[in-house]
């Protein structure tokens, strides 16, 4: 295809946007609504994913050491854990440190624990982190097999549930988004079909004058892409302002301290790009699909 023909297709596609007036508005509206929903879902899903991942990474194994173990044995345990393949980091904390940590964590009620400072009932402990969250379980079992280990804690149920929930959230979100995208494609191809009904005669004429299918299709392709791009403007603006507002208002509020949102940069921009791409895809697909059956002349 020659450059001037490409230019011609772009010009025609852009002109059709104006020639079709309200139909353009309807198509762009369909894209806009879909993208608003898709954008909200994506933001929610990706953040949930991010938070779950953060929690997953926070999963630590706490290995309590027998109170009878002497210093040498403790060191042995430490180096044994360090040599395990799955181990990312090992940190030792003495029973005194454990107690002061406990007092701190308990806040006001912590003071009642202060009386134990003289006779500390806690154990020395190793805090171990696995290289991958999924290795936590096997690593814990391995540590448990060592001598002089009294107990290994790693919140097994919490970890399992987290993985499960994360997977559900991801799958449901994906299904919803795909469903939305196809609904939009259907809506748009129907809207454009209405404009094409009127144009089917014109398409027939073009073919009789010797236009190839591609020659006819290209302006529709451009028109669809423009529908998609125009349709993403409002959703992108909504995502940018909405997310900005959300991040600013949630951060620093103690109540939502556990909510760990993805940072505005670069997440909001990435999301905008995804919205733009999905919008363009929807527009093009809807437009090109609807021309197809009118090309058989």
């Amino acid at each position, binding site marked *: *295809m*020659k450059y*001037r*023909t490409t230019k*011609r297709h772009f010009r025609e596609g852009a002109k059709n946007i104006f*020639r079709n007036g309200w139909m353009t508005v309807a198509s762009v509206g369909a894209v806009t609504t879909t993208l608003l929903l898709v954008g909200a879902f994506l933001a929610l899903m990706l953040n949930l994913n991010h938070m779950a991942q953060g929690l997953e990474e926070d999963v630590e194994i706490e290995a309590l050491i027998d109170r009878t173990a002497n210093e040498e044995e403790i060191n042995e345990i430490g180096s044994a854990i360090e040599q395990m393949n799955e181990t990312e980091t090992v940190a030792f904390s003495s029973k005194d440190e454990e107690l002061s940590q406990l007092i701190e964590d308990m806040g006001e009620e912590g003071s009642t624990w202060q009386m134990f400072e003289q006779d500390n009932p806690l154990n020395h402990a190793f805090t171990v982190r696995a290289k991958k969250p999924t290795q936590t379980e096997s690593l814990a079992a391995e540590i448990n097999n060592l001598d002089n280990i009294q107990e290994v804690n790693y919140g097994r149920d919490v970890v399992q549930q987290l993985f499960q929930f994360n997977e559900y959230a991801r799958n449901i979100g994906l299904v919803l988004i795909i469903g939305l995208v196809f609904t939009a494609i259907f809506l748009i191809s129907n809207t454009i079909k209405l404009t094409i009904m009127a144009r089917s005669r*014109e398409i*027939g*004429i*073009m*073919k*009789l*004058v*010797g*236009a*190839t*299918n591609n*020659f006819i299709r290209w302006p529709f392709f451009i028109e669809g892409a423009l529908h998609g791009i125009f349709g993403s403007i409002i959703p992108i603006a909504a995502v940018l302002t909405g997310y900005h507002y959300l991040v600013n208002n949630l951060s620093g509020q103690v109540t939502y301290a556990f909510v760990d949102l993805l940072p505005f940069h670069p997440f909001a921009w990435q999301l905008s790009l995804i919205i733009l791409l999905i919008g363009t895809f929807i527009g093009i697909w809807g437009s090109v699909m609807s021309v197809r059956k009118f090309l058989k*002349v």
Partner: protein
Amino acid sequence: MIKMKDVYKTYANGVTALNGIDINIDQGEFVYVVGPSGAGKSTFIRLIYREVKPTDGTIVINNTDLSTLKEKRVPFLRRDVGVIFQDFKLLPKLSAYENIAFALEVIEESPRNIRKRVMDVLELVGLKNKARFIPDELSGGEQQRVATARAIVNNPKIVIADEPTGNLDPETSWEIMRVFEEINDKGTTMIMATHSQEIVNTIKKRVIAVEDGLIVRDEQRGDYGYEV
């Protein structure tokens, strides 16, 4: 060059339009196709630019066998066959100029050549001053002339006109005929379906008469042959 052999056409609704057409039209000929309404003239014409496929028989246009022509190549056949449709088939939203230019945009002609060619044919059909008008703003006769200009603008080998003078006043009819003769003089094959006894009997050319899907008469410099 147009060759048809044993061509039959039965439409999906059961109507038989052609009953075995055999014909040879050489490059540069001027042919009138005459006959009563519903005799098969339009079907015969539509076969040439492959708007209609024959039920049976072979058609060869410009050395291309239409029965083996791939769907994808049809547009290229149509670029060699300029058609002036009975209902003009102009693109309603485009100006006269743009309608004619479309036939050249399709073949990716350069903008400079497009401008020159379009202005040339507009002058030939006498519509230079109405280039910017859209079809709805033109009279029937003017639309007819735009359609004619579009059909000839890319110098096709064959020009087909389906009752081109049906909607015209006598004066414009003669003007159009003058245009046809002019392009025919340049070596373009001219095929014209018509009901105009006056034209056929005045400008003597080869006449093919179609009745009930058959060619019943084929004579050089023939008469219209039907009572009006």
